[in-house]
C-alpha cells in the first residue's frame, strides 16, 4: 500500500471516528460539559470562594486547567476504548483486518479520533470555564503540546484496553478503578506541594500529576513538577503504549483466532 493509499485509509478511519462521536453527541459531548460545569459551580464558586487562593491564584482559576485536562483524559480514553471494542463486538473490525491497512495506520486513525474527541470536549469545557474563571494563556506551545500528547497517550491506553476487552464490563474497569482515582489524586483540585512528604512522593509516581501540572503551567505559569519531566513522562508513555498496541495488532491478540 503506497503512502497516498495509507493516507486515504487514515482519513477514512478518522472521519468514521469523528462521525461516530458527533452522531451520538448527547452521549459523548454533552455529559462531560454538564459534569464539569457542576464542578465549576460547586468547587469553584460555592466551596472555592471559602478556600481562598492556591499557589497565589483564586481557587477556581487554579482548578480550571486540571478540570479541562480531566475531561480530555477521560474522553480521549473512553472514545477509543468504546469505539474499538464496539467494532470487535459487532465484528466490523474484520473490515479493517481483511483490508491492507498497516497496523500503524489503524492505531494512528483510532488515536487521532480519540484526540479529536478529547480536544472537542476540552474546547467545550474551556468555553464553559470562561464563564466562571479568569483564564489567561501563559504559554500556548506548552498548553497545546501537553494537551495533545496527553490525549494521544490516553487514546493509546484506551486502544490497548479495547484489544484485551472481552465484554462491556472490561472496558469500564480501567476508567472506574484506575483512571478516575489517578485523576482525582493527580493534583486537579490541589497543589501536591500541600501534601505531607510521604504522600507528595507517592503522588510523583502518578503520571497524571505531570500532565495536569504541565497543562497548568501552560495556562497559569505555575507547576508542582518540572516541565521537562512532564514531556519526558509523556514521551515515555506514548512510545511504550504505541509499541504495546502495535505488538497486539501484529500478533492479532484479542482479534484473530
Amino acid at each position, binding site marked *: 500500500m503506497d503512502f497516498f493509499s495509507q493516507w486515504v485509509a487514515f482519513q477514512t478511519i478518522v472521519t468514521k471516528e469523528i462521525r461516530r462521536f458527533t452522531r451520538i453527541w448527547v452521549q459523548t459531548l454533552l455529559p462531560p460539559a454538564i459534569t464539569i460545569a457542576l464542578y465549576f459551580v460547586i468547587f469553584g464558586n460555592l466551596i472555592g470562594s471559602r478556600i481562598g487562593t492556591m499557589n497565589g491564584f483564586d481557587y477556581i482559576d487554579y482548578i480550571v486547567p486540571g478540570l479541562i485536562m480531566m475531561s480530555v483524559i477521560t474522553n480521549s480514553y473512553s472514545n477509543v476504548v468504546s469505539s474499538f471494542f464496539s467494532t470487535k463486538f459487532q465484528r466490523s473490525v474484520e473490515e479493517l483486518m*481483511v483490508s491492507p491497512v498497516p497496523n500503524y495506520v489503524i492505531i494512528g486513525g483510532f488515536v487521532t479520533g480519540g484526540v479529536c474527541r478529547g480536544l472537542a470536549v476540552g474546547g467545550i469545557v474551556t468555553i464553559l470555564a470562561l464563564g466562571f474563571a479568569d483564564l489567561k494563556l501563559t504559554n500556548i506551545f506548552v498548553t497545546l503540546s501537553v494537551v495533545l500528547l496527553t490525549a494521544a497517550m490516553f487514546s493509546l491506553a484506551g486502544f490497548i484496553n479495547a484489544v484485551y476487552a472481552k465484554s462491556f464490563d472490561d472496558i469500564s474497569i480501567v476508567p472506574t478503578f484506575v483512571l478516575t482515582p489517578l485523576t482525582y489524586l493527580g493534583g486537579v483540585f490541589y497543589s501536591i506541594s500541600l501534601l505531607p512528604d510521604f504522600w507528595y512522593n507517592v503522588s510523583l509516581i502518578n503520571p497524571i500529576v505531570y500532565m495536569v501540572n504541565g497543562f497548568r503551567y501552560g495556562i497559569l505559569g505555575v507547576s508542582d513538577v518540572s516541565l521537562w519531566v512532564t514531556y519526558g513522562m509523556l514521551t515515555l508513555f506514548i512510545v511504550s503504549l504505541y509499541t504495546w498496541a502495535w505488538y497486539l495488532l501484529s500478533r492479532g491478540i484479542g482479534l484473530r483466532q
Partner: protein
Amino acid sequence: MSSALKISGLKKTYGNTFEALKGIDFGVQPGDFMALLGPNGAGKSTTIGIISSLVNKSGGKVEVFGKDMDTQPYECKLDIGIVPQEFNFNQFEKVGNILKTQAGYFGIKPGLAEERAEKYLKLLGLWEKRDEMSRMLSGGMKRRLMIARALVHEPRLLILDEPTAGVDIELRRSMWDFLREINEQGTTIILTTHYLEEAEQLCRTIAIIDQGEIIENTDMKSLLKQLDKETFVLDVQGDLEKVKSIQGYRINLVDEHCIEVEVSKGQTLNQLFSDLSELNIEIISLRNKANRLEELFVSLVENKGAA
C-alpha cells in the same frame, strides 16, 4: 500464469489440541469458479479465515496470484474480497457509508469510492437503501450488502462463505446470476455452501474438505462422472405389484403411486420406461431423489468416515 490461490501444507491447530486443518493443499486457477465443500466443522471456514487474515495459521503457505501472504500481506489483501458467513458490518452505520468506508480502507479516494459504492449498491439492488441504517435491512439485503462491500475495491479473487444461507429461493437465484456474471467478467470465485445444487449449478471445480483434510479436488464434470448410480423417484399409475417382476433395476415401492428406482452407471432409463409400459404402468412424473453432487458428497464423506 500463477494460480489465483495456492494453498500448500496449510495447518491450523486450536489450543494445541484440536487439529482443524491437517496440512491441506489445493489451488484455484484465475477465472475459475470453485466450490469448497465439507460438512460442518470440516475446516472450510478456518481455511477462509486464514486466507482472509482473520485466523492465524499454524503452518503452511498461502499464495494469492503468486504473492506470498507471509511476505506480501498487503499486496495479497488488495486482490481478495471476502463475504463472511456472519454479518460483520457496523449495525449503526448507513448502508452507503459502509461501502465508502471499506473503499477507504483499500486506499480508494473519496470520489471514486462514491462511484464504486453507487455502482455496487445499484448492481445488488440496494441503492434505494443507501441512507438507511444497516441494521434495518432484511436478512437477504444484509447478505447483498456484504457482497457489495467485498466488491467495492474490485478484487480479482472473491471468496464467499455460505452467501445464500437463509436466503429465499428467488433471491438465491438472482445472486447466482450475479455471481455468474462477475465470474464471466474475470473475477475468480471460491464459494462454500451447504446447498449442493448451488455448487453444481455454479462451480466448475470442486474441493471437498473433511476432518481437516482435502478428500477430493477436481473439476465438477469429472467428479460427477464418478457417480456410479442415481436414484429416481417416479410418480406412477397402475398395478405396482407387477413392478417387482422388472429385472436389472433396484426398485423400492414408496406408496401405491410412487416408486424409487436405482439406475446404475451404464443403464438407461429407456429400458425402464419400456418395461413399465409393458406392465401398463403409466409414468406421471420423474425426478432425482437427491441432487447428483449431494449423492457423491455423502458417499465421499461417508467413505472417509469409515476409513
